[in-house]
């Protein structure tokens, strides 16, 4: 992929598909123009560049076994992410990566897995779900608890509906508020944790979403008996390099890009509790 001797220089990729997911969220399928994509591990991220605009860290949200497409789900919030969302098929982007560590897929084998996602946080755990479903028999109970702002902002809605029909995975979706036609859960995602079925002594929790939601989800998971070192969270901070050199993504002693973005709750609890760290 990109040249490790010059890790700040991106490779060129082309948009081969763009899907409008929800109001301000798009999924892009990319293909490298002149290089071979090495693949990624669930939890890792790319630095995506829109030329002349800038660069932003974006998690992988595609099928981890598919090396032909680099799939990213992006919410249009800042200048770079807005420009990414507005890209058309055929447009070029810069790609540096994959960077960062991964969700504990090997460690999760043989255990119950509870995935708690909020909002756009479903995107970085979708590769985890693909893996779990492809290798379903290697795991205990598998649960996905997903919270969104409202029914219109539920990401990957058709896929979630498909997953719900599977008997070997518990899928619960809740929204913060709904219109009258919504017949599902309404309330915060942490509420679903108490009702999920897992063996806390032999479970791994994978949590991804806004930091406030992750803080409370991690507490609820710990309250349910899962040890903090078995609760994995993916952190987000400003990043300019993705390789531990620019200094932006520090959280106390941690570089989110270099040491993470995935950390266990026992390492994060006091750091997340410190305001403006």
């Amino acid at each position, binding site marked *: 992929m990109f040249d490790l001797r010059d890790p700040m220089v991106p490779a060129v990729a082309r948009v081969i598909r763009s899907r409008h997911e929800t109001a301000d969220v798009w999924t892009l399928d990319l293909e490298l123009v002149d290089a071979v994509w090495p693949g990624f591990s669930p939890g890792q991220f790319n630095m995506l560049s829109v030329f002349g605009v800038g660069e932003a860290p974006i998690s992988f949200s595609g099928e981890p076994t598919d090396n032909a497409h680099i799939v990213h789900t992006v919410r249009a919030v800042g200048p770079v992410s807005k420009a990414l969302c507005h890209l058309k098929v055929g447009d070029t982007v*810069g790609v540096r990566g994959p960077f960062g560590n991964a969700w504990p897929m090997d460690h999760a084998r043989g255990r119950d897995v509870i995935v708690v996602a909020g909002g756009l946080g479903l995107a970085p755990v979708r590769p985890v779900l693909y893996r779990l479903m492809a290798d379903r028999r290697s795991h205990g109970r598998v649960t996905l608890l997903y919270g969104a702002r409202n029914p219109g902002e539920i990401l990957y809605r058709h896929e979630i509906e498909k997953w719900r029909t599977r008997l070997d995975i518990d899928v619960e979706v809740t929204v913060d508020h709904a219109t009258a036609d919504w017949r599902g859960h309404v309330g915060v995602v942490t509420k679903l944790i108490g009702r999920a079925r897992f063996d806390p002594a032999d479970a791994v929790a994978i949590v991804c979403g806004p930091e406030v939601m992750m803080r409370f989800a991690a507490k609820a998971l710990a309250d349910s008996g899962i040890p903090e070192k078995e609760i994995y969270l993916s952190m987000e901070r400003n990043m300019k390099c993705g390789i531990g050199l620019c200094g*932006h993504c520090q959280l106390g*002693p941690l*570089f989110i890009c270099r040491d993470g973005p995935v950390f266990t709750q026992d390492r994060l609890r006091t750091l997340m509790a410190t305001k403006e760290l």
Partner: protein
Amino acid sequence: MVAARMFDRFDEARIIGVAGLETMIGELGARGHAVVGPVRRDGAIVLEPIESVVDLPRGWVDEQTPGRYRLKRDGDSWFAPVVGPQSWKQFLHPPRQKLWTVRKSDAGATIEPEPLATEKYAFIGVRACEIAAIAVQDRVFMQGPYVDPNYAARRANAFIVAVNCSRAASTCFCPSMKTGPRATAGYDLALTELSGGDDARFLIEIGSAAGQSLVEALPTHPATKADIEAAAAIVAATEASISRTIDTGDLPELLKAEPDHPRWDDVAARCLNCANCTMACPTCFCTTVVDESALDGASASRSQRWDSCFTGDFSHVHGGAVRQTPKARYRQWMTHKLSTWHDQFAMSGCVGCGRCIVWCPVGIDITEEAAALRRAV
């Protein structure tokens, strides 16, 4: 053993005069180095290309106190002023660095990386604390999972002539950071100014094969035991003159344990968030990137620039800055320097040079802040 014999030879100190220093500058140039040294400009000692010993700030000394820096004429030393507003990081890790250009092409876009840095510097007058600072940046840029290739290239090419400090500023606190005032490693050659003036004598110590090779091309003669003792006495006197200290024992743990200490509010009330300390600091390494498009839209480029944790957008995530308050930013900077740097790089991020104290417009003193944080809440 060869290695042991080599070390013996490096350990062999010699004496060099002003003419020898002049030859050294010329010889470094002849060997392809851009020679950089201390130069008096705009009322401060800055680091600029030099061609001769006449460029050196002979006969000047600096007066440094919190928030204040002045030069005055005094004595006839060649290397009396200690560290100034600049540091060698501006050469090894320059404030602006272009990374690449992208051009529209048949393939859609083609990226042209900037060629690898080729600068070959020779730094004259590097202080012990600055050698420590270079070692800190070496660790950051060259010894992690990813290497900054331009830094590594400039670093590999650099020749370092250290100068052991014959005096200290009031803001110096290298002894408590265990970085000076004597350079013990990390140099090619180290000078100690035994006497000043036209017939100045410098003790010269050799720290590398490149240093040895250079010395062989210079007019020197062996140092006597008295010369070596005189050099040691000069550095010892400098060290004895330094009273500013940081008590570093358990400081990393203390800083981490006190994110809500009222002293942070106190310093935040004084701090202007101007970022001077981070610019002057020889170890601060943070950068941002800036993308620019050509007006014709046919190309764009990305540059890396120094950044500072004191700016509002440094910690920006969608929604706003993680560190919204000046208090949080000062706390980040100081805690990083003196505490979390140890976690990240197994060393201190502070080398005791005192620049942040001098160049702070309101004279905030990191040593005083560290002491205040030790006091009971």
